[in-house]
């Protein structure tokens, strides 16, 4: 077998294994820890009889491993269980919300990735210039600011003071693409601001790392233009770490979306999960947690596989 195929297959197997471990952890997190769902649902009015009745009804009187196996088999078949709160199939509740979240994260990525890479290249091209310093200072503040501060500041500035965009991102089924895009302008801007900073910083670092190489000095001594050196000589060799950072930031985007959705009242999966946690709707929380974790793992897996595939030393073994 080609060594690279073996590497990729091994990484995929490892990904499957960690998905399984995560399912175990998420299930254990809601089952083994002290704290009883039945009591929590009943609140103050929890009599022992009522608690026992609820436990029986939800199937909580069965041993944990049995319920875990049921849950896992269901997951694999696409059956996410039934919500405690309104007795609807979880898959039905999740479907539309997941699509909305993926749309928001997708648009944010489409804006943030080219912007970050472009700014990173510009920061190297005009290194130590005002632009570079400005970008550097901006990244430090953007990294350390909470998403909700950026979100509300954007609303305050661009929806209230200068009404350019809607403050609340309401979407409904059957809404056309142009209208959807218009509504998500501010949440996309908030997500982009948070991720661009990190990606730009890492892009800059990756290219600068390559710029230290002797062959770049050769190119400089040949008298090539600085733009050409950065774009044609340094960038291709810095691609692999840049791709890695981009994918890791996409994984971050999937999580950052939770807070941003709540700020902009956007009907996505994050908002659904937060509501489910408040209502102690365990099956729904488990399903949302599993979807978020799986997306995160898949993206990290993609980063690793891309890193293998873009490594010239692995592609052309001697």
């Amino acid at each position: 077998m080609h060594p690279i195929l073996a590497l990729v297959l091994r990484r995929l197997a490892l990904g499957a294994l960690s998905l399984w471990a995560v399912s175990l952890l998420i299930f254990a997190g809601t089952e083994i820890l002290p704290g009883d769902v039945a009591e929590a649902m009943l609140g103050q009015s929890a009599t022992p009889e009522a608690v026992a009745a609820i436990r029986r009804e939800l199937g909580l009187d069965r041993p944990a491993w049995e319920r875990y196996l049921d849950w896992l088999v269901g997951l694999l078949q696409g059956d996410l269980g039934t919500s405690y709160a309104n007795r609807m199939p979880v898959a039905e509740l999740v479907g539309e919300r997941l699509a909305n979240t993926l749309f928001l994260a997708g648009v944010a990525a489409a804006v943030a990735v080219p912007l970050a890479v472009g700014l990173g290249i510009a920061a190297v091209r005009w290194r130590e210039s005002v632009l570079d310093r400005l970008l550097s200072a901006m990244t430090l503040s953007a990294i350390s600011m909470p998403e909700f501060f950026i979100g509300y500041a954007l609303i305050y500035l661009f929806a209230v003071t200068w009404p350019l965009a809607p403050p609340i991102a309401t979407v409904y089924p059957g809404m056309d693409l142009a209208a959807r895009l218009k509504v998500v302008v501010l949440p996309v801007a908030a997500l982009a601001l948070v991720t661009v900073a990190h990606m730009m910083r890492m892009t800059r670092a990756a290219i600068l790392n390559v710029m230290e190489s002797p062959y770049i000095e050769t190119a400089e001594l040949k008298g090539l233009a600085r733009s050409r050196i950065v774009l044609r000589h340094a960038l291709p060799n810095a691609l692999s770490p840049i791709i890695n950072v981009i994918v890791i930031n996409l994984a971050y985007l999937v999580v950052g979306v939770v807070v941003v959705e709540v700020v902009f009242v956007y009907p996505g999966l994050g908002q659904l999960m937060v509501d489910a946690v408040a209502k102690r709707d365990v099956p729904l929380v488990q399903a949302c947690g599993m979807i978020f974790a799986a997306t995160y793992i898949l993206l990290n897996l993609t980063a690793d596989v891309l890193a293998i595939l873009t490594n010239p030393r692995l592609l052309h073994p001697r």
Partner: protein
Amino acid sequence: MTHRMPWSARLGLALTLLFVLLALVGPWLAPYDEAAVVGDVWEPFSAAYPLGTDQLGRDMLSRMLYGARRTIGIALAATCLSFALGTTLGYLAATLGGWVDAVLSRLVDTLMSIPTLIFALVVLAVLPPSVTVLILVMAVLDSTRVFRLARAVAMDVVVLEFVEAARLRGESLGWIVLREIGPNTLPPLLAEFGLRFCFAILFLSSLSFLGLGIQPPAADWGGMVRDNANAIAFGLPHPLVPAAAIALLTVAVNLVVDWQLRRATAGRGG
């Protein structure tokens, strides 16, 4: 040491100390009680209410001061606990090696493959929302990062001669970890402490903002953003006040950490 600090790090340090001071003495400075309703809903900034009043007519400045103690105190407690847990286990994994290292490392890998916020949400769905639970959840989840760093730096130290000498002298495990490895791994862990503290502030505030952290009527900055969120629709800046305080504190700490990290890399000639 301080005379070579760049102005950005000085500013960061001054602001951080100011925040910590406010957290210590805040409740005594507060003009009103955090739960006292003293005026109308969302009164503007004025002499009587320097930061206005909140959605129930409570004094924002008083709540900010009480909230400073709660937000900073809980984040600090969680960070300390996560360091105690993470460094102990990380040092043990590096010193003992073998199956202890293998089991701990795999466990940490798995915990880290779930985004922290998501796993916290999952656990908070069944745990009661109390301050102790919050501190424990934050500390355990955050200790994974500390574990990785502590293990990595300790790995470099364990192989050095003086550790080997201590082992041959027959020193106990406790001695080796506390007296040989601990002091020699401290500097990189100190910079990490600042980063983890920032993360704890942001994390706690996010949980409170989502309504799953500190429960009302107790004031904390993240919760105050949530409580006053609706004001923004009326063009009032009230939710921006606590949000800006969080941002300012984390930026300040980051300025100091950034300087520390830069100094560390400069020392290594990188």
